[in-house]
């Protein structure tokens, strides 16, 4: 029985509209997301951090992220750290342009040849970081991942068996879980991951951890004051079920 989605890497690009390098970050991120590593990556929307995208914030808290910035201001890296947690890796287009002796990217709407080259170089760099973070080795000759290097995390499809969903409002893949509380169905963002963290820390279900687990749940989910006790009871009950399954495995 499995409870968690496949581990993925979040890509946060600055997408700066006022610079050609911003367009490079956007196109490079999309190249990784759509073509190079579609199964291993998800897009994280930078403005959503600020506009209250709890799914995006939660994802970046639980999973590794790569910040892709166009310039020295490093808005993507700083925003990710400010609103969620420190990115696992960082890429800056201007650094890559210098390191690879590329020409100056120009053209915010339509990149010049140097800009398109920068997109390819940046995308390759991101893909390599994704593989590193997921502990995968890419076999260039075979055009596939080397045997034995695949991430052993479970697949999102497996989650359907447990009644959990690998989705949220932003589509970032953060798992949600629905509980029935006082006859109402309530959706919790990140609950399976929180359970997993507590389980790995050896925190057995019980009143001793109620306050701590509720504090963690509250980071990503609103808890109505008047229903705090009912929410706590339901969450602790579900954690007991999770704990039992893990022990039985």
């Amino acid at each position, binding site marked *: 029985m499995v409870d968690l989605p496949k581990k993925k890497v979040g890509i946060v690009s600055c*997408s700066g509209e006022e610079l050609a390098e911003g367009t490079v970050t956007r196109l490079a991120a999309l190249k990784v997301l759509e073509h190079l590593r579609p199964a291993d990556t998800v897009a994280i929307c930078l403005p*959503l951090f*600020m*506009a209250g995208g709890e799914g995006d914030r939660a994802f970046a808290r639980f999973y590794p992220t790569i910040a892709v910035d166009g310039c020295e201001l490093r808005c993507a890296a700083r925003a990710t750290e400010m609103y969620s947690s420190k990115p696992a890796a960082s890429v800056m287009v201007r650094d890559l342009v210098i390191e690879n002796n590329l020409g100056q990217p120009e053209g915010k*709407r339509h990149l010049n040849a140097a800009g398109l080259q920068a997109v390819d170089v940046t995308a390759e760099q991101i893909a390599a970081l994704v593989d590193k973070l997921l502990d995968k080795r890419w076999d260039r000759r075979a055009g596939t991942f080397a045997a034995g290097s695949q991430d052993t995390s479970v697949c999102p499809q497996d989650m359907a068996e447990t009644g959990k969903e690998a989705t949220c409002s932003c589509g970032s893949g953060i798992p949600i879980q629905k509980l029935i509380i006082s006859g109402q169905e309530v959706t919790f963002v990140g609950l399976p991951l929180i359970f997993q963290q507590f389980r790995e820390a050896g925190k057995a279900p019980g009143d001793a951890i109620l306050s701590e687990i509720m504090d963690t749940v509250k980071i990503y989910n609103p808890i109505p004051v008047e229903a705090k006790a009912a929410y706590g009871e339901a969450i602790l009950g579900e954690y007991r079920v999770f704990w039992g399954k893990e022990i039985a495995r």
Partner: protein
Amino acid sequence: MTISGQKVVIVPCSGIGKTYGSVSRQAAYIVVEDLRPEDTQLAALSLLVMGDEASRAMLAENPAITIDGCKLACATKMVQESGGTVAQAFAVLDVYRRYKQFKPQGIAELNEGGEQLAHVLAEEIVGIVDHISIDSDVKDHHKGCENG
């Protein structure tokens, strides 16, 4: 540009996960680079997210037009959070509902429908920009008369 030197700030959402985000970005470029380069300027949402002082000052001194790709309305929220005045908020989806013949597809590269939708959206934005500019000029003119 108005007599007082104001330029309307165009703020697209540029969402990376959806086609409508690309339409918003493209429409912003059409307005700022092609249709009204003298009257408008672009603000980067990433800078607003980080509270960039220059961007906040730009919004404090000029009216803004926001273009959002989804219901979360990040561009509009960010301008408001940054102390700016949203003169008009556009939602790409609403524009698409009026021009369903232009079906946008693609994120990295928009299809023809997406480009056409961006163009009609840009034309609507230009209408608002012109309205704001005329209003500002009339106010500036009145001020000039009162002072002179």
